[in-house]
């Protein structure tokens, strides 16, 4: 018998002690704070959960199949939580492997997990969930009207969908239940709904989905719901009526106000949270201080859906990117910079033709957000000129030609006739990876979840995967 079955056979909602859920990390791979994790382990959690992914860092990671977190720190964090879970003989659940949770991310995380186990001589049963969605499945859903954009996502053409380098779906509790059915010690999932990581075992143990999802929604960010917020491990004690929240950092306090305020964070609607299984209604949730450090939460409403929905994400390559970095400190040029950039672009189109795009980011003059004229910098501005072309060689060529032409461009009223740009770096044009864009950020209705999410059971024997 392995850790999942041990838990399922020894715990039942409402029959004995509350369920202790330890959220060890909301962003595995950036350094789990160790003192709080140790304190959390002393509380003998029934299982340990970690979220490893996010859509926040942008489409590059999903598109390129690379991790945002540095592999050396991912390895460190995996060693910490794997060692802790095996020693305590409790399930370890890691969701959204490798940032974006597509096959290459899952594989890279699995490789690091096995590497750690090999070094330590650890053996355990592992379940993996692959979250990749075939383009054909998305195309079928689109044709049948089962694909719905989230927010103002442009309608993708069929070719855009086919061009996605990776498409993933966020698996929910229904899928992780299938994975837990293989009795793993460790569950490593590709792209997963943050809440599924922490809510699936509670639901399997008989806790109501609404309360389990609400608890999961808060602890998936660890101590971010505290004041001051942070990244320290968070403990939730779940009973049939509600849950108690306690940061494992004694200086981060879960107060009714801080926990309730967390419902606003990165959330389009603070009252209604859409989950694959249904809608959480937080209007009626109650938050009560147990003491200055801990808060009890009860009463969120939950409207279950007849069939779970599936949130999908897809990223397609736009091209290769090069950037030109330069400063401008001439007041005359700063007054006419947009016109000068347009004139130079026109020149360069003739000198280095091809299907390239240029996106100027003029820091000090509205690169971050549009600025009224009076607030635009008149004395110094930073230029990040972004060039995207089908091939890296063309992007780099255009950046170089643009640099030289902008440096020596003559414009009306020019007094600084020796050069228009200040360079901090040589070379000042840099290769900047590949450029991707999100094509899919949609909800799929009536998705064939069992077909999409592939669950596999493995034995890891002293780091070797069987």
């Amino acid at each position, binding site marked *: 018998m392995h850790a999942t079955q041990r838990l399922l056979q020894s715990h039942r909602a409402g029959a004995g002690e509350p369920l202790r859920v330890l959220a060890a990390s909301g962003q595995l791979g950036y350094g789990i704070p160790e003192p709080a994790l140790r304190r959390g382990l002393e509380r003998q959690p029934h299982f340990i959960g970690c979220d490893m992914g996010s859509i926040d860092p942008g489409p590059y990671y999903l598109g390129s199949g690379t991790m945002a977190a540095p592999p050396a720190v991912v390895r460190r964090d995996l060693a910490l939580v794997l060692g802790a879970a095996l020693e305590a003989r409790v399930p370890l659940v890691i969701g959204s492997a490798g940032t974006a949770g597509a096959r290459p991310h899952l594989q890279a995380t699995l490789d690091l997990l096995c590497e750690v186990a090999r070094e330590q001589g650890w053996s355990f049963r592992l379940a993996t969930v692959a979250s990749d969605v075939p383009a054909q499945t998305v195309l079928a859903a689109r044709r049948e009207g089962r694909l719905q954009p989230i927010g*103002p996502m442009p309608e993708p053409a069929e070719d855009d969908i086919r061009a996605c380098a990776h498409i993933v779906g966020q698996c929910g509790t229904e899928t992780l239940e299938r994975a837990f059915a293989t009795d793993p010690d460790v569950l490593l999932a590709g792209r997963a709904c943050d809440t599924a990581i922490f809510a699936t075992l509670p639901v399997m143990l008989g806790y109501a989905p609404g309360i389990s999802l609400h608890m999961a929604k808060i602890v998936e960010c660890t101590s971010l719901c505290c004041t001051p917020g942070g990244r320290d491990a968070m403990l939730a004690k779940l009973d049939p009526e509600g849950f108690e929240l306690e940061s494992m950092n004694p200086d981060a306090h879960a107060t009714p106000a801080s926990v*309730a305020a967390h419902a606003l964070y990165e959330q389009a609607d603070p009252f209604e949270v859409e989950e694959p299984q249904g809608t959480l209604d937080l209007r009626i949730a109650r938050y009560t201080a147990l003491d200055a450090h801990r808060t009890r939460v009860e009463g969120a409403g939950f409207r279950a859906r007849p069939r779970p929905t599936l949130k999908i994400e897809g990223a397609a390559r736009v091209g290769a990117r090069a950037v030109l970095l330069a400063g401008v400190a001439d007041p005359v040029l700063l007054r006419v910079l947009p016109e000068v950039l347009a004139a130079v672009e026109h020149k360069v189109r003739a000198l280095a033709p091809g299907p390239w795009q240029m996106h100027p980011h003029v820091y000090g003059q509205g690169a971050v957000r549009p600025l009224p004229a009076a607030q635009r910098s008149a004395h110094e501005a930073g230029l990040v000129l972004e060039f995207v072309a089908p091939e890296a060689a063309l992007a780099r060529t255009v950046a170089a030609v643009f640099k030289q032409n902008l440096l020596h461009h003559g414009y009306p009223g020019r007094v600084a006739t020796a050069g228009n740009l200040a360079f901090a770096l040589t070379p000042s044009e840099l290769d900047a990876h590949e450029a991707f864009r999100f094509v899919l*950020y949609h909800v799929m209705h009536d998705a064939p979840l069992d077909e999409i999410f592939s669950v596999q059971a493995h034995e890891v024997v002293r780091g070797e995967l069987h």
Partner: protein
Amino acid sequence: MHTAPLSPAAPPSSPPVPLSALARVVRSKNAGPTQLTLDLFFHEAAGYERAAASAALQADAVAGLYGLAAGEARRFELPALQALKFTLPRRVVAGSPGDGDVYGAQQHGPLLGVEI
């Protein structure tokens, strides 16, 4: 995050004050790659009430502040938290070429100068 109130909220008849004098948190962040969400937490209930009632913080006024059309911003009132929230469509899907703020964490500026 908890700082002392800068000044007690003035009665509605008093001259306008900048939002930054009433709010302790003014922040922006993506809510997924297609939307931006703005959270305002006030020092105290009076400041919240005054801000919530002000013309400058109605949903359409905030849409205008961000160059959007009337009806494009949604407003949420959370009096128990002394908080207002606005959710807006992003101009560019996060991280597409040309985007200047992939996380959307630096879009709060236009709110800071709002007169209440």
